């Protein structure tokens, strides 16, 4: 093996170790048979998983996170898709500026967006709740969804839309029955990216929630009252679920590819 190839492989290996190190430790200490998830490792136990499943606050937060992530991502994809369609097909004047305006939230730190919404909701007398958290998550995810869909809306779809119009479809029919189905892998990708970001978002969820909270907020509260292996158990569960989803999507895509090929 040439030295350059060896260096390449060494670098890749080191990078993978670096990237996996904290997660490996996280998973290992979820099985810790002691009161705190710190070395030395005391041996294998599933008790923290039992505790976690029996922890009502944690389970409620898990459900809240799924709902907030699902609903806000659906809203972000819908708004982003419509905007991308309007910009690509309507070709409004000042299209560049409108696009810049829609993408602007990407250049602002989450803490500022969260604080601003907190201030505005406060001034308007709107109480903090999971709804306000969801609104915040749509604000941060809309630009991404818009950008993802916009990048995939090309002439190819426009031609087929034109064909649909020539055959008598209305704008709405063409949008829902022709454009959206053609774009579904893109829309699905935008939804999942959006969901992932919402799922793990802390500062906006922390500032804009009150009694009902999302998973990162409840974990933060638990962490502040001391290290707890239940946290490792939740982290491992989330990790395992993500891997499961990835495998599922890969299998789905492969079977699709297989039918095509």
């Amino acid at each position: 093996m040439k030295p350059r190839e060896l260096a390449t492989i060494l670098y890749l290996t080191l990078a993978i170790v670096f990237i996996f190190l904290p997660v490996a430790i996280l998973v290992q200490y979820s099985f810790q048979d002691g009161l705190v998830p710190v070395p030395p490792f005391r041996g294998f136990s599933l008790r923290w998983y039992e505790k976690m499943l029996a922890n009502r606050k944690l389970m409620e937060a898990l459900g809240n996170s799924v709902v907030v992530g699902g609903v806000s991502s659906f809203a972000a994809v819908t708004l982003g898709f419509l905007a991308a369609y309007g910009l690509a097909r309507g070709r409004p004047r000042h299209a560049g500026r409108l696009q810049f305006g829609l993408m602007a939230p990407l250049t602002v730190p989450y803490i500022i967006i969260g604080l601003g919404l907190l201030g505005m909701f406060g001034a308007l007398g709107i109480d903090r709740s999971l709804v306000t958290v969801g609104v915040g998550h749509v604000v941060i995810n809309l630009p991404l969804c818009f950008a993802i869909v916009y990048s995939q809306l090309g002439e190819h779809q426009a031609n087929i839309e034109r064909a649909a119009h020539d055959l008598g479809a209305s704008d709405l029919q063409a949008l829902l029955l022709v454009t959206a189905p053609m774009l579904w892998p893109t829309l699905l990708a935008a939804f999942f990216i959006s969901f992932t970001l919402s799922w793990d978002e802390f500062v906006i969820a922390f500032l804009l929630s009150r009694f009902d909270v999302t998973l990162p907020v409840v974990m933060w509260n638990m962490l502040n009252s001391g290290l707890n292996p239940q946290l490792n158990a939740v982290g491992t569960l989330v990790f395992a679920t993500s891997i499961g989803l990835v495998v599922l999507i890969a299998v789905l895509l492969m079977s699709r590819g297989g039918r095509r090929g």
Partner: protein
Amino acid sequence: MRAGGVGGLTRWALWPALLWTAALFAGPLVVTLAISFTEHGSGAFTLDNYIGFVTRSDGAFLAALFNSIEVTAIVTALSVPLAYPLAYVLAYKTPPRWQRVLLVMLILPFWTSYVIRSYSWLVVLSKNGIINQVLLSSGLLDAPIEFGNSRGATVLGFVHFFVMLLTLTIYANLVQIKESYRKAAADLGASSMQTFLHVTLPLSLPGVAVGAFTTLVLAIGDYITPQILGGGRELLLPQAIMLQIERRADFPMAAALSMILMLVVSAAYLLFARHLKMERV
């Protein structure tokens, strides 16, 4: 000219997103700006929040600003050169079917939870953590050192995340560069180093710029990483903002600090603007 629509729908389709962004993104920024000029408690107009930022006797806010800029600069300066070779190897030296597997491997660890991942680093870096064990058993250290609860730990936590993010953005850019450019350079007698320096590297700079700017925005606004890993000996700007909200319920001061943070990010944006084509993200 109508581009495939009968008119109505294509024209209003843009409006919901525009109104949403105006009302719930631009609106709150204006409210924050307005609140930053009010006095805590009375709500009267004042410049004291901004004056206090500079003149405060212990200099805590100015220090937080400089710490934030410093840490963000260090994180970006470390993450880009660490990620670039990784993206390069993935894009050009890895068989296509392995590229996908490696990309998924790269992202996978970040689908745990951000809060928990940060505190896992604390465990890794602790006195009886794995890093100390390795260093002690290899004889590089005589006594264990606490690596956590420090600026270095904050930087490490950030670099961990941003190496992944930057690898993705740079990779996405590298695979778009046509192979024929590199082949042409080679045909004209360029060595592989020359091809890289004069063809590949310049063409990949937009990807680097987008990734570096994203790193900057996300890192300078992050609260969790420095709060969990930093140990509290120094504050970063987001921690200072949260302190105003949580401990002192001083919204106007928090708003002023946010506007200063916003100013720093805008300055960075102008610095990068030449290379950032937002529409190409």
